[in-house]
């Protein structure tokens, strides 16, 4: 039967096209993809340090889980602040992020619900960030917007009572879940 669909391609051209496509797919660098929004679920770990000299130096750690949408909202999440006493903050409504499409840098602002006590009920979690705090971090997207680095902004903490929240930088990486 005559093939009415398509002109027959040269085997040489087909082979060359296939080889070049394979080569480019293997060898080409990933595209600059920071225009992608920060959409999805994220798992993060961050660390900072603070202490007195002479005296003790201790690390401050944060583990985060965040869910973001394409409209710049952080819709839910948990921030576990671990500095000898562990407080599990939940992410409240009104939390946001934005990303500069030209270079993948941006800001993420988390409004936090403060738990009454820490994980083993022997510490007042209000004493970390104050009541109804917002914590702000600077971010930079990497790896085709599948990961981002973050570090605390200046100020890091804003509360109803205090807007001069200078805080040692807590820095780390978030990875898509």
């Amino acid at each position: 039967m005559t093939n009415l669909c398509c002109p027959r391609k040269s085997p040489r051209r087909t082979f060359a096209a296939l080889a070049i496509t394979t080569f480019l797919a293997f060898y080409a660098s990933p595209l600059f993809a920071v225009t992608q929004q920060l959409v999805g679920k994220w798992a993060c770990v961050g660390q900072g340090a603070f202490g007195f000299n002479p005296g003790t130096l201790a690390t401050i750690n944060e583990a985060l889980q965040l869910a973001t949408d394409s409209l710049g909202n952080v819709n839910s999440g948990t921030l576990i602040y671990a500095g000898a006493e562990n407080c599990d903050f939940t992410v409240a409504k009104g939390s946001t992020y934005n990303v500069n499409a030209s270079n993948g840098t941006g800001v993420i602002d988390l409004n936090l619900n403060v738990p009454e006590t820490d994980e083993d009920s022997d510490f007042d979690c209000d004493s970390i960030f104050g009541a109804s705090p917002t914590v702000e971090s600077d971010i930079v997207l990497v790896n085709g917007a599948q990961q981002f680095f973050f570090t605390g902004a200046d100020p890091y903490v804003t509360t109803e009572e205090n807007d001069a929240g200078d805080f040692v930088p807590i820095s780390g990486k978030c990875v898509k879940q």
Partner: protein
Amino acid sequence: MKKMNLKTFASILATSVLTLIIARADGAFAAPTLAGNWGCLTTGVFGDVADGINFSLAQLMQFTISANKVTSGVVRYHISGQLCVLPVTGGTYNLNTSGVGKLSIALTIPALDVDGDFPCAADGFGLGEDVESVTETFDIVVADQQTQFGMVGADDFLSGPGASEANGDFSSIIGSGRCVKQ
């Protein structure tokens, strides 16, 4: 001239592609390239008995490398609650065939941090208050098929106007980190 037949052409092409794939898998190219857009985080810790406190530092960085030069970007230098934003004005890198080398990034230093209560040159870098530029140099090692590199502050981390050997030795303060291709 004798015309190449299909079989010969296919054989040469397949051999070329295979050679490139094997060379890439072995990391056997002459020297890695860092062309592209990068996001990075470095962290460190510093303490001073005179000041009475110890604290962490961090640099969140974004920059572009093109034609073997750092062409643009921004470094957000966070030191104990104060944030200085430093535009990238240039830079260079070199790597050996094992992927080890140095990266230098030239920066403009703003007079004050983002909320205007911290002199960036003097208190951020230990330079003179009127110093407006500095170059940071990192020892780097490239990984994961040139999509990442690890970095530590080089000895003589800071150079440029006002950077003496003493405050050039900044490498242990700024610590270490990683850059990932965007």
